[in-house]
């Protein structure tokens, strides 16, 4: 349990920042498997069931849980995540509700927690307050799909001061040079987007994924998490270079929406 690393030193700067996310992925890899990184929209399918499924994912062996902060304009997400977001918003989910809920459950999860959401709700919350409250809630990282390198300096610095990673996102059309720019500032893990487009609308993985992974492997010293379009382990068979972590989003949400438990989804990966 990583609680030893993130004690209640909320307002202290770690002297030598140790990325809990990087360490967690490395631990899974040391055990001979990719780290399992499920994505679950906060407040989906209902407020109560969300917390039950969080427990289920944690029991089921999730190494990192990406919690989706719902937004009505999820430009990088497909219909499944968008529909989950809209339902969560109808359920009254706000960023504050998520952070308060996580604070109340501090140290409950074995998995590391990452918040994934669009920039405006974070901006309106106030980036300094966000960094402080996220640290107090035990959040280890953020993914902000609409915040590329040119725009992310302020948020990255405020999070880093609390020992929280801002995860870099790269895709099939991200050049080696661009990856190198990210590598200079990136921490935690690198989210490698498998397809050019939106989440949850493709069958299977496109053939260029190994090349994308290879470029990222060259550019980053960090673990690589592959996401967008991943449903089952056999999709990764035959990859010359397995990703260090796998992210499941739309497939997991569909599974839950069909009345199944999040925990059962992870079983196939163990």
């Amino acid at each position, binding site marked *: 349990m990583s609680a030893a690393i993130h004690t209640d030193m909320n307002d202290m700067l770690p002297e030598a920042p140790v990325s809990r996310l990087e360490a967690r992925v490395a631990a899974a890899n040391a055990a001979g498997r990719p780290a399992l990184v499920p994505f679950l929209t906060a407040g989906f399918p209902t407020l109560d069931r969300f917390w039950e499924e969080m427990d289920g994912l944690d029991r089921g062996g999730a190494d990192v849980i990406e919690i989706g902060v719902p937004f009505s304009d999820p430009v990088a997400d497909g219909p499944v995540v968008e529909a989950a977001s809209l339902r969560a*918003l109808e359920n009254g989910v706000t960023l504050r509700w998520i952070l308060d809920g996580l604070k109340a459950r501090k140290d409950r999860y074995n998995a590391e927690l990452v918040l994934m959401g669009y920039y405006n709700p974070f901006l309106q919350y106030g980036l300094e307050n966000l960094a402080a409250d996220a640290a107090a809630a035990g959040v280890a990282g953020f993914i902000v799909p609409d915040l590329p*390198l*040119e725009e992310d300096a302020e948020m990255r610095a405020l999070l880093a001061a609390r020992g929280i990673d801002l995860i870099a996102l790269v895709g099939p059309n991200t050049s080696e040079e661009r990856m190198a720019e990210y590598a200079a500032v990136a921490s935690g893990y690198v989210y490698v987007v498998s397809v050019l487009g939106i989440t949850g609308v493709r069958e299977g993985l496109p053939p260029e994924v190994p090349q994308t992974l290879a470029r990222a492997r060259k550019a980053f010293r960090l673990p690589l998490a592959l996401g967008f379009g991943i449903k089952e382990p056999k999709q990764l068979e035959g990859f010359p270079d397995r990703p260090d972590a796998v992210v499941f989003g739309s497939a997991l949400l569909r599974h839950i929406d069909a009345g199944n438990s999040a925990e059962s989804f992870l079983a196939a990966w163990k």
Partner: protein
Amino acid sequence: MSTIPRMFPAGVTYGGTLPTDGGCACTAAARAASLATPPAPPAPPARDGLFGPYGGQYVPEHIKPVLDELAATFERYHSDPDFLAELEYYLTRYSGRQTPLFLCANLTARLGGAKIYLKREDLNHLGAHKVNNTIGQILLAKRMGKKKVIAETGAGQHGVATAATAALMGMQCTIHMGAEDMERQKLNVFRMRMMGAEVVPAMSGQRTLKEAVDEALAAWLGDAENTFYLLGSAVGPHPYPRIVRHFQSVIGREARAQVLEAEGRLPDCCVACVGGGSNAIGLFADFIADEGVRLIGVEPAGRGLSYGDHAATLCMGSPGVMHGFHSYMLKDEAGEPAAVYSISAGLDYPGVGPEHSHLKDLGRAEYASVTDAEALDAFFVLSRAEGIIPALESSHALAHAMKLAPAMGRDAIIVVNLSGRGDKDVAQVEEMVSAGLVTPPTL
């Protein structure tokens, strides 16, 4: 003021504090100088399309290369002689530019104050200013080797303009439009389909422009390699606000020369309606350096300025990030885009172009709002006074000019951008009149 200074030389981004007081007494020498020297092309914004703190590229990493490619194409061609010749050809021969600057003698006499000039963008091919931009962007698309264009539309004007220019250039065209807007603007939907476009209804949320933008973006991301996203307003991530400004700035460039020719001096005010802000920035662009000219953007106050009843983004909103750019926006406490409303389908957008936010903060432009009822009144008044039926969008600008004019001297000059014609709105207004919801004013 003894000259008409151009405060910002070409190639320099404007910045700092600008005076906003009106009035412009010009010397003959300045007049001559101004007439002899055409306005400089729009100054390029700073890094990645920032307008002060606004603009930027708040987009997923995987669409950045596509935007970079577009920006590079635009930088390569916007001043290229061959490109400009082709643009000029289509603007002139296809759209009928230049559009007239018309003095509304009857309306001016009736109001008893400033002279009201209309920049007749309604006389463009398809009846609105939108075609200035669609021609420019589709010529860029051709140079990029794209085969398909995709666009969002609110009132349908941009969709119609896109469908038309796509037909002209032999390109495949898909238009995303809110289902609610499709109902309000049935004939525009039919027009688009006649010209070969596929019109896809946006069924989520309020089913208006915001949802149409989301769905168009999503569809574009799915096939960015072959598809050109033809954005209709001066919004979105860099380079779109810069591109749209550039192609719409023909409005102000012509208007400035025309008013100088007609009056021998610059106008006191330039007035334009603001939804996303493309016709307004098009009118303002070449007047920004003319410090004595008041620039006034007019937003829709809808049923009033309570949350959800209007779309007066600059008057009532605050800065945020939406649809890939930083600007004023209307939003709730959690940062969600607000529900917005206007009688005019072309103005009900919770964001606004980033350059307008910058101009507001600088004090270089002012932003006012006009209610549905005031806009409707102007719609009837212009029709009756001059035999020109304005679009409901443009009626907002006109309504504000009608408030300003009586308080100004008879020598004062107001230029109103009549951004579109009102034929598309006649059925909607007729229904309101028949239902007794509105009574045409007696003149």
